[in-house]
């Protein structure tokens, strides 16, 4: 069993399976690693001799770079696989790739995949630790953790803190990981968006659901704004970008009626002028750049803690 300084998991597949203690442990370690950034030599030897592979079945330069930087700052060797998938052979490609990676003796796999549950399948096949870097519309655990880290750093804690998540919750893995992390840490979470994108099933997640923007954000301490994807329009989840912006856009004007110390978050990439105004994204309330910085620290913490759980044959 685990003690207070280890994770009880071999993989990081989702925040749902982490306990509040484990989330705190990751955030605490991240704080230590963030200090490393302020040094002139931004590197520690914690993962020397370990190999981290980023395995991306979906493009994401930001997330991949963040993980690679995290691994390098821990002195791990990094390799990357990017695989363009056709719709017919996705599954086979995944299993085959897993076997290849296994044969190369890789210790940690960071995986991004367009389908929910893909890292779960991989984790059942490999001895390496699997870190989910986003699977379909399921979870993006390190994003949820880095958002929690950023909130804690700026707001001091979670108890009684009001966090609104605005946008396409239904299709958002970022939202799911945020909901899991924040509710476990004691924040009060409100989901805001049209009823097609925030269906009533979310009420069972221990959060408040509202379809009225101002009702959802008026008392908020933090607003996390999700990227709206135009392709959802084609399937009638909402009729137009124009109407979406009118109803749910975080505009300059709306910002004025919120708490003076409101904190604005966005996982990026930002659709300026759609879900958020340029002035809001770049304004004094925005922590979007800090989120990116913290992402590296949180990912270092995750890599470090999981490396400690590798089977003994893979340890030093």
């Amino acid at each position, binding site marked *: 069993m685990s003690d207070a300084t280890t994770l009880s998991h071999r993989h990081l597949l989702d925040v749902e399976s982490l306990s509040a203690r484990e989330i705190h442990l990751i955030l605490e370690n991240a704080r230590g690693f963030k200090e490393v950034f302020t040094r002139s030599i931004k590197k520690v030897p914690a993962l020397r001799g370990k190999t981290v592979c980023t395995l991306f079945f979906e493009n994401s330069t930001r997330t991949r770079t963040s993980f690679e930087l995290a691994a390098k700052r821990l002195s791990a060797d990094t390799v990357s696989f990017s695989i363009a998938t056709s719709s017919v052979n996705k599954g086979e490609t995944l299993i085959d790739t897993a076997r290849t990676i296994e044969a190369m003796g890789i210790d940690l796999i960071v995986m991004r*995949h367009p*389908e929910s*549950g893909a890292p779960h*399948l991989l984790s059942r096949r490999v001895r390496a630790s699997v870190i989910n870097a986003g699977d*379909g519309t*399921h*979870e993006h655990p390190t994003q949820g953790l880095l958002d929690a880290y950023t909130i804690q750093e700026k707001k001091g804690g979670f108890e009684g803190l009001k966090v609104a998540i605005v946008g396409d919750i239904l299709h958002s893995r970022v939202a799911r990981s945020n909901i899991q992390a924040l509710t476990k840490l004691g924040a009060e979470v409100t989901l805001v968006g049209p009823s097609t994108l925030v269906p009533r*099933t979310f009420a*069972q*997640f221990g959060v408040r659901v509202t379809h009225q923007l101002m009702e959802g954000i008026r008392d908020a301490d933090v607003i996390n704004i999700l990227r709206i994807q135009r392709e959802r329009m084609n399937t009638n989840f909402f009729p137009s970008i124009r109407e979406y912006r009118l109803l749910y856009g975080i505009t300059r004007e709306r910002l004025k009626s919120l708490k003076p110390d409101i904190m604005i978050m966005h996982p990026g990439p930002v659709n300026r002028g759609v879900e958020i105004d340029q002035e809001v994204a770049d304004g004094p309330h925005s922590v979007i750049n800090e989120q990116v910085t913290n992402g590296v620290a949180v990912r270092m913490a995750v890599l470090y803690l999981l490396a400690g759980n590798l089977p003994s044959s893979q340890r030093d």
Partner: protein
Amino acid sequence: MTTYLLQGGRILDPANQRDETADLWLVEGRIATRPTASLQPDEVLDCRGLIVAPGLIDMHVHLREPGREDKETIASGTRAAAAGGFTSVCAIPNTTPVIDSQTGIKFITSRSQTDAVVNVFPYAAVTKGQKGEELTEFGDLLQAGAVGFTDDGRPIMNNQVMRRALEYSVTFDTLILDHCEDLNLAEGGVMREGELATRLGLRGWPSVAESIQVARDAELSEFTGGRIHVMHVSTRASVEIIRQARARGVRISCEVTPHHLALTVEACRTYSTNAKCNPPIGPESDRLALIEGLLDGTIEVIATDHAPHTEMEKDLMFTDAPNGIIGMETAFGVLNTVLVRPGLMTLPDLISRMTANPARLLRIDKGTLSDGADADVALLDPEQVWTVDPERLHSKARNCPWNGQQLVGRPVATFVGGELIYRDGRILDPAR
């Protein structure tokens, strides 16, 4: 031919409302309840503690032959049937090619004569190529041996086509079996819509995708007088629609699968593709409504929707894996464990839904232990505790959600036409 004496078992013959401890003789391929005094058995089976039931009938089986012999064949599928106590199975025609012509029916029957160890009753497609457009030749197909019509797997979305199918079926008083799924509502859905699908980030298949089509079928059946059978019913609302329609005399019947009776959507929690099926498994409230429908007679039949797939196909991500669960070898164990042992259902009631009821709907001379009937008999041990071992299944496929689980109740012997073809885990290949 061997004359068998099945001695001292509990004879359950729902067709004759019979439930008593007695001997049963199998003579010249037929049931003999009143053998001549001089008759000597060649073999005596001690059946004390066992159920002696009519061979079970599964009216919903994908044998996959012709076309996907890598998943299952008539040979392997009927062996799985025998191991599950089934002596008659209805073959779904969604093969490659689709069984939509007399030639197709004749292929199934002739291949069954050489390869099958249980009786195979083929269905034919409702529409040519299961395209949902032009009706097949019902009269010709019935004459060739079809026992009903279904486009299972490819729902008939066009209401006019379904209307004509039901209307034309009246000519022959035959059965139309429908896979009820509104393809627009269900598009992209891989598990039942609801909290867990939302949590897992998987596209939901909403319950109304089924019940809307069930309501349509009830309306069209009432309007045309055709006999409609709803396959694998899975939602509370569907059961209620069928209950109400039956109460006003609509000729609508339905079946439910063991997996919808035994499992809930929770079976998908770990992205387990062996729990992925169509219609998808619903929440506990639906499961309870299905059991209620089974008990009050709204649901007359339990059928497995045995749907074999290769391990390679199921060993994919949840979204990519095909729908389907194999169910014949585990059916009795699952149902006995989940329904009979907890006291929800009696054994005679369970057996009736797997013998007399499907036989009546299909109008086949099976599912009874009447004197002179074909000696299709299942010996079931309701107390045997066993663990489902995927490596010991007779099906070619392994896509079973009960793999590794313990069940109580198992078929111990199966007779088809008076021949012992299965005993204690082994198929006894008969010279036929």
